[in-house]
């Protein structure tokens, strides 16, 4: 006769459950500790290598993500600062740009209420063109300043939407768009900038890596990740979510 492993939750059996759960946690924890790697000594969070573009990383509630020397869109004295850590090849970042960013720009950035700062967080392990794209945008910035940077920023996402089979402005976003250095150079040329030598030299590789390190130190675990006046918001959230927190920050 087979003996069934059914447990009645009494005190003693509760201990068995607890022990099992604890053991499982310890095993997973040990596995992660030894194999997960890339632990962040500043925050204690494990930072993405990163597997998936996502909207659900956990972050500390108050962090120190700075504007650094990165491109600013909008009034530099605006009362609210949005810092986005993003990856040009990440579909969720493109989704944010397609569905939310333009509305934020129209209602808050263009009206001087918000300044927006784009910082790079390329997830190179799954998005091989992300780092090149980040460098390409910086190369364009070198030639034409922040305004040119954001033209290239928009261009990359627009072209991503086209490669994804959608409308450049409205999408929809279906998946990861595949492109490379050749396309990036062409897109920059379409805007009037020759970035071939700059991109080939890897001149801005360190700048991009610094952004990534800063993002990791601030607790970014996936893209897009935002800090609105220093408070974290993760993922390709709708305009309604941004509106609510921006309005609250403006009223504070």
């Amino acid at each position, binding site marked *: 006769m087979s003996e069934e492993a059914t447990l009645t939750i009494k005190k003693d059996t509760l201990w068995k459950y607890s022990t099992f759960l604890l053991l499982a946690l310890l095993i997973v924890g040990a596995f992660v500790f030894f194999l997960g790697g*890339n632990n962040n000594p500043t925050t204690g969070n494990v*930072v993405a290598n990163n597997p998936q573009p996502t909207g659900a990383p956990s972050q500390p509630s108050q962090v120190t993500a700075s504007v650094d020397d990165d491109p600013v869109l909008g009034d530099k004295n605006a009362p609210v600062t949005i810092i986005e850590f993003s990856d040009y090849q990440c579909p969720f970042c493109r989704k944010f740009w397609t569905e939310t960013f333009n509305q934020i720009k129209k209602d808050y950035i263009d009206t001087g209420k918000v300044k927006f700062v784009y910082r790079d967080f390329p997830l190179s392990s799954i998005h091989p063109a992300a780092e090149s794209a980040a460098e390409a945008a910086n190369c364009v910035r070198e030639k034409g300043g922040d305004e040119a940077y954001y033209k290239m920023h928009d261009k990359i996402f627009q072209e991503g939407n086209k490669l994804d089979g959608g409308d450049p402005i409205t999408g929809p976003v279906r998946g990861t768009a595949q492109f490379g250095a050749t396309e990036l150079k062409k897109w920059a040329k379409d805007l009037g900038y020759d970035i071939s030598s700059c991109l080939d030299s890897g001149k801005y590789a360190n700048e991009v890596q610094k952004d990534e390190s800063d993002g990791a130190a601030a607790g970014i675990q996936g893209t897009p990740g935002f800090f609105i006046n220093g408070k974290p918001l993760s993922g390709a959230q709708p305009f309604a979510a941004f509106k609510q927190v921006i309005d609250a920050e403006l009223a504070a």
Partner: protein
Amino acid sequence: MEWKQMFSTWKKIFTNWKYLVVTVIIAIIFYSINVLVSSWSSLKGFFPTLGFFQTIKFFFILFFWFKETIMFHSFISLIVISILFGALFSLVGYKVRIGQGTGGKKIGLFGGIGLFLAAFAPGCAACGVGLASVFGIGAGALFFLPYDGFELSIASIGILSFTIVTVTKNMYVCKLKNLNNGRMY
């Protein structure tokens, strides 16, 4: 118990509106906990600025938009796990109700494992959703798994399904179990 009998049992239980409502409520609670866990840092961060009621409103925005912020397969697995969790909860409730004298809930070892996995990495382990993120195990931590932790979700679906079948099979059976050192539970 044959499959036909099991379906008959499920039909009997889930056509009772009380158990159906419990299933739906538990499924929604489970889903909400996932949203809460994954959005906790944002909710906590903005709470001082938003205040209580605005934070609740903010949570609902994140709740309804949650599917847009995770991979489609992750969302589907989260929904499936939430429903299975709710169904198992109802089944256990029904079993406790009819099992007079059992003196407690019975979900079995597999149920415990399934619920643990479901809670640990329910919809999108790779996104740091679930208890994984509570323990500070984020997206990168499960990257070493071939499917970025999605396999944990599949495992929890399998185990929860198995548990539901087992609980249903034993629904109307009184058994002597775990004869251990002469003790009978």
